[in-house]
């Protein structure tokens, strides 16, 4: 790379700009943890702000006298997603009113570069050489058109495998890897696993770039109708048939095939049983991480292809062109007219939906009571109020009254209420008399004789009272 290219990257590439940012440590540690380590996909603004708030609180807590990050979490996010920064992708998904943010491939790059600066105590090289040779073999074998040669290669490998079998039969220890060789391979595996995860974002970004360039070509197409159709057809299949699309699809198919899944699970499980390796716990479930990230990418690709298909639908395409031409015309006229009084013409549209208003749903007239405000109240005179009556409410217990009658009147006998009251003087006044009248039990019948009158004298609250009432007869059944 020449000087100018590197200079341009330093100025323009978001990953480099990220490293140069004043808040680079905050930016990289927070976004790296949230999107890369914890593997979040596109997330709603609120969720990220909460997490960033916690982070800022913690950072500022280290030196409460001089807090280093004085701005609000939302401010930082907006800045990081601005066009000038380009560290985050910001968009409104369909069907939600909350802004969503997702990491850009640049963030992945910057974060992984910073991580790679950590000196590794041991760098395995053997496994990488092995992998490289294996790849070479695959290329050679996969491009050989002569079946004889391909067969010969397979034969050679068969013999090799047979020799290995013999060796193990002769010596059970043969072919075992020593711990260094295992560690070497593990290191390569874990770094590849992580790189793979990081690559998905770039894959997605590439798909979006493909989509954009396809739309651009279609939108600016100036050729004939026949050429246009050809372009539309190739545009329709461009994403799926690109190198990117095919490689991703093959990866996705392999990962999601059930045999692939099972084998991966079993192999990863085996990894954690090797104690000397001290395998990272998260590595055991790394294939779930791949599947999730791949699923997200797959979803994006589906959406993009679907939208592109719609966009390239020639009817919509022609309509869009017509609309743009007409809008340009209108804009031109509007500019001419802007100095004068606004024209009195406008669009005429049908309304969406039908206005239904039910006359009976609407009250015709409702009388509101006139409210009067009287703020001049005459002062109240002081008065002694006996509040004890509130507390001294008496409740006449009908069960007690019935019990008295049972004591007094023999079975099938009768008695007059005035006689009962002589035996059991009235304690609760008129209420008690009414209580007798209202008695309602199976064995006692209270009847009144309207023809005869009786007078009952009793005391109520210290005052002597007299009740004039029809004669009351009590009868036991």
């Amino acid at each position, binding site marked *: 790379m020449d000087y100018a290219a590197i200079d341009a990257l330093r100025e323009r590439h978001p990953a480099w700009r990220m490293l140069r940012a004043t808040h680079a440590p905050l930016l990289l540690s927070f976004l790296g943890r949230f999107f890369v380590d914890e593997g979040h996909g596109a997330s709603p603004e609120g969720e990220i702000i909460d997490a960033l708030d916690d982070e800022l609180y913690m950072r500022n807590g280290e030196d409460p006298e001089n807090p280093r990050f004085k701005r609000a979490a939302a401010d930082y996010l907006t800045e990081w997603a601005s066009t000038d920064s380009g560290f985050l992708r910001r968009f409104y998904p369909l069907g939600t009113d909350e802004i969503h943010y997702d990491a850009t491939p640049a963030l992945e790059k910057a974060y992984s570069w910073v991580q790679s600066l950590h000196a590794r105590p041991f760098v395995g090289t053997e496994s990488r050489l092995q992998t490289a040779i294996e790849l070479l073999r695959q290329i050679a074998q996969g491009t050989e058109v002569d079946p004889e040669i391909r067969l010969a290669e397979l034969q050679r490998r068969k013999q090799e495998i047979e020799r290995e079998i013999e060796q193990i039969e002769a010596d059970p220890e043969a072919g075992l890897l020593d711990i260094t060789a295992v560690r070497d391979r593990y290191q390569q595996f874990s770094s590849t696993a992580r790189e793979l995860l990081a690559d998905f974002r770039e894959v997605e970004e590439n798909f979006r770039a493909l989509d954009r360039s396809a739309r*651009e070509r279609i939108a600016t197409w100036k050729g004939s109708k026949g050429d246009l159709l050809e372009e539309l057809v190739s545009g329709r299949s461009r994403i799926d048939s690109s190198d990117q699309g095919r490689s991703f699809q093959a990866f996705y198919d392999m990962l999601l095939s059930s045999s692939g899944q099972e084998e991966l699970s079993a192999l990863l499980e085996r990894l954690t049983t090797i104690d000397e390796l001290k395998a990272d716990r998260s590595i055991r479930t790394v294939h779930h991480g791949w599947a999730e990230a791949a699923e997200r990418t797959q979803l994006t690709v589906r959406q993009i292809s679907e939208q592109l298909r719609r966009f390239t639908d020639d009817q919509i395409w022609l309509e869009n062109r017509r*609309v743009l031409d007409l809008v340009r015309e209108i804009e031109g*006229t509007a500019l001419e007219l*802007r100095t004068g009084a606004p024209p009195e013409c406008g669009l005429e*549209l049908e309304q969406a939906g*039908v206005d239904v208003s039910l006359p009976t749903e609407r009250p015709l007239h409702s009388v509101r009571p006139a409210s009067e405000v009287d703020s001049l109240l005459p002062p109240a005179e002081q008065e002694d109020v006996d509040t004890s009556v509130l507390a001294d409410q008496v409740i006449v217990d009908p069960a007690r009254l019935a019990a008295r009658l049972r004591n007094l009147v023999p079975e099938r006998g009768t008695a007059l209420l005035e006689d009962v009251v002589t035996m059991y003087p009235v304690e609760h006044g008129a209420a008690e008399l009414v209580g007798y009248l209202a008695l309602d039990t199976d064995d006692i019948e209270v009847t009144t004789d309207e023809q005869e009158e009786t007078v009952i004298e009793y005391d109520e609250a210290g005052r002597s009272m007299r009740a004039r009432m029809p004669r009351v007869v009590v009868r036991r059944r």
Partner: protein
Amino acid sequence: MNPDERAVATSAIRLMQGVVYQESDAWEDLLRHRGAVRDHFAVIGLDVVIDDDEGYAYLRTTEPEDGDEPLPRVIRRRALTYADSLLLVLLRKRMVEFESAGDQGQLVLTQDEILEMIRLFLAHSTDEARVLKQVDTSVNRLVSMGFLRQLRGRRDTWEVRRILKAFVDGQTLSDFSAKLAEYANGGADDE
């Protein structure tokens, strides 16, 4: 009323209330019973337009066949003011640009962006507040017509709804353009 009849009735009512979007809970029912719902509205001279790709459905007055006397109008036509029309046209353009750029999700504009977009076409005024109010009025009218939707919990931020494409189509724009051109020429003749 059995569940199917209920679904047909609900779909019909929701269409009468306005545009039914894919995101709405009535969408599935409407798709399943589109035949019955169509029959229902055909009687009173309304078409049910369902756009599967764009994900919206609405009612439209059926064009009377040649020689047929048109039915009384069920759906009201509305004449927009020049300012409202201009905003709608500019939003329609934004929609095409948004789609051409391959952006995903919904087109969301802030008040500043809307103002920026329309300012060029307004008579230069030193009264900033008046301009702002005028644009505000237009925005509110488009909200009431269902072309803009204020985002929940966000003041001064609107979603431009996809239905705009169905209502502000080539034909409508071409009529408007012609009328406007006529007005511009007429005005020149008077001077």
